[in-house]
């Protein structure tokens, strides 16, 4: 009797231990070894991964007097929409939408168009009304108008206007539809120059669509301009290898304030800029120039220019405390023994600007000062550098490096010279379009790959701040895409900048480092010494109980028989 009671108590003890292990122990172990992962909006991120962008621009076409007949004038206030769709690859689709509004010119606009020169007309049209960011206004002027020179059909102004000359060869019996049909290809051509085009936008998406050998120039363009970044550092350096001969003075502060700052202020919606300058003495170019007797100067040919930059770069130093990209602009004044120094291009022709630039790095200009003093002058000579000339070259290089495309306009086009800021409004708009698309594409790629990474590696800890950054990036992205669709370029750019900042902050957070790679055999090696000593007695006692119960049942069956 006592033995049986003890046996039952023993069995109950074993069962209760097994119950405690399974019901309390296993969940406790699971909770204490899991990593904290905050919630991420994964479904929204997946939706964003299929990038579908729509770029909309408003175009206003104004008919001046003499281009439409009075009957046509009554029908003219009308709106047309042109849409174009391009599937760049499986995940990316771009849609371009131009909403064209046709109307006739007001009396004040007619007065403005009666100015003697196109530039004057442009100026007075601008005082009448300022077009919002991203939109364009085209004025159609009659063929016999004297505003444009003989062989130009289109004049592209400094702001967001263009003057188109329409040819009236069809005759008086022209319907409005025929007139519009005739204008359409011309308008399209102007839009390719002044507003976004498929080649520009797809060039910017080179991250997502890697191997797209459409045109050599397109690829060269995308390699030359800096990638979109919230800020840039610009450094102007004066290299004087020969201080014993030349005592150089340059008013860099004033020059930057007068010539460079207006451009940078205009570009402030795109990025922040910080400028500094330095002077380096006894720094040589590293390439020996050869004396060319045909032009009586020392020459650097185009092939050796590639080797000029490296020895100089080691001496340049950097003042940057941030991780922003640095643009270096160097002004090199050759020493007295190697003056004048001219740069030759591949065809051995002299280069008028005497300067060259390197993609994603900066530019170098060679400034010859041997003409400023007599050979018998007392050394060192005081030389004051003409900053207007120098800054003109640097400004052109700066424009190229920042991505302001300057492909030659089609024939028959006349582009107004840039204003005091060096950047036309429509060029700024183009830059804003491409930057906006680039930011959105980059932010989307970053967020998508971050979500993929966190999904794949299940034991990375996701803190709350990362989840917050990701959510805010996703929000900004959705808003940016919506604003872009609506055509509000400025807001779209701002939102895209916020999106890219948040996504980069989340992706590059120092806490996301995956150092926890455990191969399976290591996992077994860690857990077996902990759990085996505990599980073996439990399992054995359960097996013993089960075999005893089976034996009893067999005995019972045998007894029955």
């Amino acid at each position, binding site marked *: 009797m006592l033995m049986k009671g003890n046996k039952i108590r023993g069995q109950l003890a074993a069962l209760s231990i097994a119950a405690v292990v399974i019901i309390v122990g296993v969940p406790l172990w699971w909770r204490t070894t899991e990593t904290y992962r905050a919630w991420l909006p994964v479904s929204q991120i997946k939706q964003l991964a299929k990038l579908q962008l729509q770029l909309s621009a408003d175009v206003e076409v104004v008919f001046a007097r003499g281009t439409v007949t009075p009957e046509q004038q009554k029908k003219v206030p009308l709106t047309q929409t042109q849409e174009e769709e391009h599937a760049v690859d499986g995940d990316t689709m771009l849609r371009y939408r131009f909403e064209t509004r046709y109307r006739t010119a007001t009396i004040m606009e007619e007065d403005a168009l009666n100015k003697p020169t196109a530039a004057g007309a442009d100026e007075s049209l601008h005082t009448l009304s300022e077009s919002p960011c991203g939109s364009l206004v085209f004025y159609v002027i009659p063929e016999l108008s004297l505003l444009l020179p003989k062989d130009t059909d289109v004049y592209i102004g400094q702001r967001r206007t263009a003057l188109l000359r329409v040819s009236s060869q069809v005759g008086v019996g022209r319907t409005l539809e025929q007139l519009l049909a005739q204008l359409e290809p011309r308008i399209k051509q102007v839009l390719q120059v002044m507003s976004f085009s498929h080649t520009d936008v797809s060039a910017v998406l080179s991250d997502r669509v890697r191997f797209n050998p459409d045109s050599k120039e397109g690829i060269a363009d995308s390699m030359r301009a800096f*990638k979109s970044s919230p800020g840039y550092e610009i450094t102007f350096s004066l290299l004087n290898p020969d201080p014993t001969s030349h005592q150089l003075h340059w008013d860099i502060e004033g020059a930057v304030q007068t010539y460079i700052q207006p451009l940078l202020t205009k570009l402030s919606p795109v990025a922040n800029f910080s400028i500094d300058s330095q002077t380096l003495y006894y720094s040589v170019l590293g390439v020996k120039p050869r004396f060319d007797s045909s032009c009586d100067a020392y020459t650097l040919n185009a092939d050796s220019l590639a080797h000029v930059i490296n020895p100089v770069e080691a001496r340049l130093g950097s003042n940057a405390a941030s991780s922003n990209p640095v643009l270096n602009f160097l002004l090199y004044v050759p020493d007295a023994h190697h003056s004048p120094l001219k740069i030759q291009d591949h065809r051995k022709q002299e280069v008028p600007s005497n300067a060259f630039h390197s993609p994603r790095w900066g530019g170098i200009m060679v400034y010859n000062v041997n003409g400023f003093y007599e050979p018998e002058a007392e050394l060192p000579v005081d030389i004051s550098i003409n900053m207007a000339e120098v800054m003109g070259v640097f*400004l052109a290089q700066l*424009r190229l490096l920042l991505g302001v495309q300057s492909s030659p306009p089609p024939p028959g086009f006349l582009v107004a010279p840039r204003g005091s800021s060096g950047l036309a409004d429509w060029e700024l708009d183009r830059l804003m379009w491409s930057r906006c698309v680039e930011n959105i594409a980059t932010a989307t790629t970053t967020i998508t790959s971050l979500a993929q990474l966190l999904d794949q590696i299940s034991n990375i800890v996701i803190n709350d701040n990362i989840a917050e950054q990701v959510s805010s990036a996703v929000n900004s992205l959705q808003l940016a895409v919506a604003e872009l669709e609506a055509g509000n370029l400025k807001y779209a750019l701002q939102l895209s900048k916020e999106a890219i900042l948040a996504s980069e902050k989340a992706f590059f957070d120092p806490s996301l480092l995956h150092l926890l790679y455990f191969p399976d055999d290591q996992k077994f090696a860690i857990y077996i010494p902990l759990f085996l000593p505990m599980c073996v007695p439990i399992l054995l006692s359960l097996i013993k109980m089960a075999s005893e119960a089976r034996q009893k049942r067999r005995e019972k069956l045998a007894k029955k028989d």
Partner: protein
Amino acid sequence: MGYFLSYYTYISFGCWVQNMLAAIIMLIFICFCVHFQNTAGQFFSSGHTNNWAVLVCTSRFWFNYRHVANTLSVYRSVKRLGIPDSHIVLMLADDMACNHRNPKPATVFSHRNMELNVYGDDVEVDYRGYEVTVENFLRVLTGRLPPSTPRSKRLLSDDRSNILIYLTGHGGNGFLKFQDSEEISNVELADAFEQMWQKRRYNELLFIIDTCQGASMYERFYSPNIMALASSQVGEDSLSHQPDLAIGVHLMDRYTFYLLEFLEDIHPASKSNMNDLFKVCPKSQCVSTPGHRTDLFLRDPGSVLITDFFGSVRKVEITMEAIHLTDPILQLEDGPMSEEVQEKTYSYVDQLPVSEIIHQKPKQKDWHPPDGFILGLWTLILLVFFKTYGIKHLKHIF
């Protein structure tokens, strides 16, 4: 050329001469065609605009002198061919030049009889000593550094950067040992490269590793545009080259010694390609069999120049236009500015904020169960059970 030679020796001598001439003329013609390339074509051939190098030596202690010499030789070549210090991340796990046991202080030699001092005059070490850890290495590669890290310690590459990564130290099948206390596995390295690719932090990557069983480290790569070289196959050891009796340790590893010899012949305008690099240190010289992996690389290795990775040849474009500026320079007003400047006086932040430290509350840490908790718990349960019910119940369990 050698191929032609061996093939045509079987034919008569005159025929051989004729064929050689034809081959030479064809070669010259091809060279001519290749020479007339415009700048857009130049852009195409490599697709990169800047170069970076990450050079890591992972072992410490005086007898691992050769690993530091390896890394410094590659550093020297890379600097000589043009990559500036701002684009090189050099990680040395120990200081050999100023080690107490170094009979020639401030030098690290790579050749016997002290022919070549690779320590030089302007070495810039970014991560030194105990800063060289697996964590820091992965942080540099992936860019996940704390915001206070200076520029010189960061890898600020973009999608048009070609990166050279050189690792040396002691390794095994699938791992590389850091600092004699931790290791990095080939899976972690492959994942780090994949994260770099996802963020487009490189255009092309050249990975060179000089350790024992080095080929195991590149087996797991799966990101595109990576070319890898290793000094030995799985199961083989990489051997060192030569001991120096004056210094008392081995100076270089064989693979890097012959690599340095090869690189000394390269100059910035050289046109040698990767196929020459694969031939460096054959089995007769190296004893181990160097390996390479090019299946992930998109371009043909024969068209990749050595200077695409080891040097920094910049692309250059002539500036064709300039903007015509006519405004005179504005005269800046100095008066109010200088007053403002004088009012602001700057001072250093308190280096050791004693009052803050004294009154600091201890940091809240997550609660973890004490060590050995589970073992102790179960021992306790078993003891209590047997105490209560007696030892005779042991037979119910076993």
